[in-house]
């Protein structure tokens, strides 16, 4: 009678799933066509990462090929709104549909609003667009900054 180790089997199943999902991820993540426009999918565009350090929040948005002039940022009630437009081939270039061999990139206008975890100083917000990534630096307001409290030992 063969002895089967259930844990080993589970482990191999888990690995198989990891392998399958990694393979899928390669094709769809992060830019499947439907993921571009908010109206067409649950996923919003652009995707963002939020980082923080002691003084600032950093919002990094994944937005390749966006004309920097069209990017519009606004801050109201602790909500940051990013909007802009991604162009097809570049400004002023028109391509006939039949000229396409492959069309995987998606384009259009987008807008996205994110809520920030705490209050920020709206006057000192900075934004940078580099290599297709948008970095917004939002300094925390004095009230929101963490305060060090010293413990008195009596």
């Amino acid at each position, binding site marked *: 009678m063969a002895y089967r180790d259930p844990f080993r089997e589970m482990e191999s199943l888990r690995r198989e799933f990891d392998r399958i999902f990694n393979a899928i991820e390669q094709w769809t993540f992060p830019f499947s066509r439907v993921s571009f426009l908010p109206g067409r999918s649950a996923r919003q565009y652009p995707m963002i990462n939020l980082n923080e350090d002691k003084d600032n929040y950093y919002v990094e948005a994944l937005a390749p090929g966006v004309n920097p002039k069209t990017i519009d940022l606004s801050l109201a009630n602790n909500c940051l709104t990013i909007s802009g437009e991604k162009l097809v081939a570049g400004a002023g270039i028109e391509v006939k549909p039949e000229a396409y061999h492959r069309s995987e990139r998606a384009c259009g206008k987008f807008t996205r609003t994110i809520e920030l975890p705490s209050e920020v100083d709206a006057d000192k917000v900075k934004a940078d667009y580099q*290599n297709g*990534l948008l970095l917004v630096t939002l300094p925390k307001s004095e009230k929101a900054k963490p305060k060090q409290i010293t413990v008195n030992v009596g």
Partner: protein
Amino acid sequence: MAERTIPVTTTVKTTEASTREETRQEERYLTPPVDIYETQEGLVVIADLPGVSKENADIRVDNNVLTIQGKTQHLAPGNPVYTEYTLLNFFRQFQLSEIVDQEKISADLKNGTLVIHLPKVEKAKPKRITVNVA
């Protein structure tokens, strides 16, 4: 223009999960989405490579294969609070046909979008022939 994908990891070949070798390469790669369109002068390849700077992009033609490679870098410092994506390095290859003039290929990376121009060789360009009416 046929696409040729050369596997970068050796792990894909085996299907047996229990014996599958964990990858030895430190990086995983992402296939960038591309648009390819044809004009009278040649082919234009547009690829989205967010997070790749000019220095970290590596575009080469070798043995009739066009390789697009890019190392990505995040911009934001600090500790992550909320993460929707992580940047991976990009890799994609295309087989070039004979109509491409490989000496005249040019590439331009701007705003995270790579535009490669692949001009056609002279004899592949369409020519207009005027008809003489006698």
